[in-house]
């Protein structure tokens, strides 16, 4: 069947799971999928998969459509929206674990857990849009990775519908568990290429009693990074960023290269951290507390350079990060303690220049032993742009085998992951 014959696709899947479950894509979804199917449970997801495999129709799970629209060179036939699979199955505050369906947004989950002073400490931009499925599938993260790790460290159980409509689970709902192979790690960051996640189980963590955020401006990347490294060594922080001048400006700061540090804990801890941070940072360091601090943290989290020509995530050993951020055309929010930065390049007069700048940064990142992933590119930048780095040969051979094994019919979000998987 032609992937793009939308009316035929609608008829096919309406016959399968009911007309009310099928709709046309809207907004950015149009770049992600030809039609949207909205299954109500894992069994319906499995039926969709079986039909897609039988008729060679491509499919991909879709949350808000941000990741899929950005990474797909052409839409998949069926976007499997999990908007109707958005329930909390079990939340045990005293165990600090939560089982939830993948269509639930991070913000909705955290509204529930906040009632018990807990949260899932993952903070990608715009958590009101980020579904748990996308959080896992795209391995999104934010500033809190500094202290809490990423979703890979928090996901303790997973269920997914795989090829043949098989319903599979790995892990469990206990925080320490080494029974069986770690399917959670396999699914995390697999971008819908191995199956459709139907349930997620996470560890949640207590929210800090108090939070403050410190800012200090520096004249260049190197001095800001050195100050950040010193602070990292001296104190256990909630998060630690270095923001470029334009990013600082977007955050409502004065500009310059800004070191941003999150200070969290009990009142006594935050007081001590604040004093220590103030003593270590450049003169004129500012510390916000209370609601003002939380609003600042949210601006920092949401700083995703949505209008830039190219946005990418780079990761290197932390000590190498500053060097990779030196090119003047790069704007960034860098998680200094993790060696990870979200960078943006504006197209300026010439898209080719932005692409060339990206290529230079990519080379620098590779030379530093790291990797780069494009998160978003304006349409004029797309032709010829590699979203993912090519893994080393032997590792890539394993990935090809993994993909063939989990997706023998090649229907799960094909041809846009690493190496065209």
């Amino acid at each position, binding site marked *: 069947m032609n992937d793009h014959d939308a009316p035929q696709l609608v008829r096919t899947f309406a016959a399968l799971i009911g007309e009310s479950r099928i709709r046309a894509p809207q907004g950015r979804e149009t770049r992600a999928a030809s039609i949207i199917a909205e299954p109500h449970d894992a069994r319906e997801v499995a039926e969709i998969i079986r039909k897609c495999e039988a008729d060679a129709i491509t499919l991909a799970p879709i949350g808000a459509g941000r990741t899929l629209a950005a990474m797909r060179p052409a839409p998949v036939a069926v976007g499997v929206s999990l908007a109707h699979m958005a329930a909390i199955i079990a939340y*045990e505050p*005293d*165990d600090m*674990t939560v089982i939830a369906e993948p269509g639930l947004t991070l913000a909705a989950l955290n509204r529930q857990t906040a009632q018990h002073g807990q949260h899932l400490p993952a903070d990608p931009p715009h958590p009101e849009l980020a579904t748990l499925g996308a959080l896992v599938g795209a391995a999104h993260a934010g500033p809190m990775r500094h202290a809490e*790790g990423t979703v*890979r*460290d928090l996901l303790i159980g997973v269920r997914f519908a795989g090829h043949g409509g*098989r*319903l*599979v*689970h*790995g892990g*469990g*709902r*206990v925080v*320490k*568990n*080494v*029974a*069986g*192979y*770690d399917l*959670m*790690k*396999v699914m995390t960051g*697999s971008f819908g290429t191995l199956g459709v996640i139907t349930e997620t189980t996470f560890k949640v963590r*207590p929210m800090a009693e108090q939070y403050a955020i410190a800012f200090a401006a520096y004249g260049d990347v190197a001095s800001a990074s050195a100050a950040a*490294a010193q602070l990292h*060594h001296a104190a*256990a922080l909630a998060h630690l960023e270095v923001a470029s001048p334009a990013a600082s400006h977007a955050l409502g700061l004065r500009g310059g290269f800004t070191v941003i540090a999150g200070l969290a*804990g*009990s009142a*006594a*801890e935050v*007081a*001590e*951290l604040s004093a220590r941070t103030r003593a270590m940072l450049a003169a004129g360091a500012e510390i916000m507390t209370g609601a003002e601090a939380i609003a600042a943290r949210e601006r920092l989290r949401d700083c995703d350079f949505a209008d830039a020509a190219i946005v990418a995530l780079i990761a*290197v*050993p*932390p*000590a*190498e990060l500053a060097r990779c951020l030196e090119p003047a055309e790069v704007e960034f929010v860098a998680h200094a303690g*993790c*060696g990870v930065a979200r960078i943006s390049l504006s197209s300026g007069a010439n898209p080719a220049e932005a692409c060339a700048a990206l290529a230079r940064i990519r080379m620098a990142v590779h030379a530093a*032993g790291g990797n780069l*992933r494009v998160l978003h590119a304006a349409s004029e930048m797309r032709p010829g742009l590699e979203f*993912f*780095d*090519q*893994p*080393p040969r*032997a*590792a890539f*051979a*394993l*990935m090809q*085998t*993994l*993909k063939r*094994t989990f997706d023998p019919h090649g229907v799960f979000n094909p041809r846009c992951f690493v190496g065209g998987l």
Partner: protein
Amino acid sequence: MSSNGNSRLDPHLIAELRAALGDDAVVARAAELKVYECDGWTIEKAAPEILLRPRTAAEVSAVLKILHREGVAFVPRGAGTGLSGGCLPIGAPVMICTSRMNRILAVDYASRRVEVESGVVNLHVSNAVAARGFFYAPDPSSQAACTIGGNIAENSGGPHTLKYGVTTNHVLGLEIVLPDGKIAELGSAAEERCGYDLVGAVVGAEGTAGIVTRATLKLTREPEARRTMLAVFSDVDDATRAVSAIIAAGIIPCAIELMDQLIIRAVEAAFHAGLPTDAGAVLIIELDGAIAGLDDHAQRVGELVRGAGAREVRLAHDDAERAILWKARKRAFGAVGRLAPNYATQDGVVPRTRLPDILRAIGAIALRHNLRIGNVFHAGDGNIHPIVLYDERDADQTRRAVAAGREILQACVAMGGSLTGEHGIGAEKIAEMPLIFSPEDLTVMSELRRVFDPDGRANPNKVIPTPGSCVEVSTPRRQVPI
């Protein structure tokens, strides 16, 4: 049982392996091989036909290429401190030991990374970086002997994983020699991955993906300070409720360990650590972090445990007092050896809030089988280690001890828990896998395994039950310290 079926290795193959590695890297005499017939799971024993001790990844690769060509299965081994028979050769005539690949290759303090060969002993990593105020966080009780490669295979934990996580949270990159001899670099020193998380798939795969030869690990900063306390309870039920109370209050200690009365008395009889022998249970609770606020947290924990029924809370005033508490905990298993001719340790997990239920269930199981069962375990994680005392000279008692172990695991699963929190499935629990995984789950896991090892020659007959792999356990499980 014989590990290797009927066929003996071809002498030409042995000669080729000798030529590839040199004579000093090959152990083939039966008397010397006896050392390698089991790990910490001593129920089943099987020596390999040959043991190889390569020095480099290139040598591992040369060996695996030869074995690949000949279709011969192999089992990796680190220090042999595993607790589930993970390096027991079952249908694998060749054992490959990583102990000579024991160099710490590079330390990057600025990036908090260390690159090590897989035969490096866990504690040696922390020792190497301690002077600069860092440590390697996963700390299994065998850390003075166990290797990083073994930790990676088992995804090892330890008392302090409550706060710091297990091995998989600290491994960024691996060099692995695949079963066909190809060398693959997985992950890197960077936190983000390029493509599928194959490092995450290999960590905890129990040596079934190949032989890890090198790893890039994260280093953790030493906390500024610690507060270690002993909470004494008349009733074990209250102690388990106190664990939930601490966690529910939003405080994450770096360790919460529980010892019940049987264990306390054994420890006191053996070592005179000053534990109250009339107590129903004690908790060792350790907090760490910035100095500011730590005493507040300690005070709050004190209030919480008293609220849960602790009759006494002692705070260790200095490192010496702290060391005594941890020594009591870590020597518990040695002490139990004085109580009965044999003991068998289980490893199960329940959701933390079910600790009171699982301990009551264990008590009922002990009563039903007329056995003594002690408990010393990582309470903060819900990771139990019941110790079943028995006398192997009494066949009926032995049978009851086996039955009790299995019933405890079944109870864990019924409470929403798991078969193993940190010891692994190995050969030991392979028959129990269907208690928590469906045939479909196990099929997918087998498929994942075949991505790395299409011929099933890397540590065969482990983790996933296949016809012939299930061991009929007629004697109880291990009796070595955890």
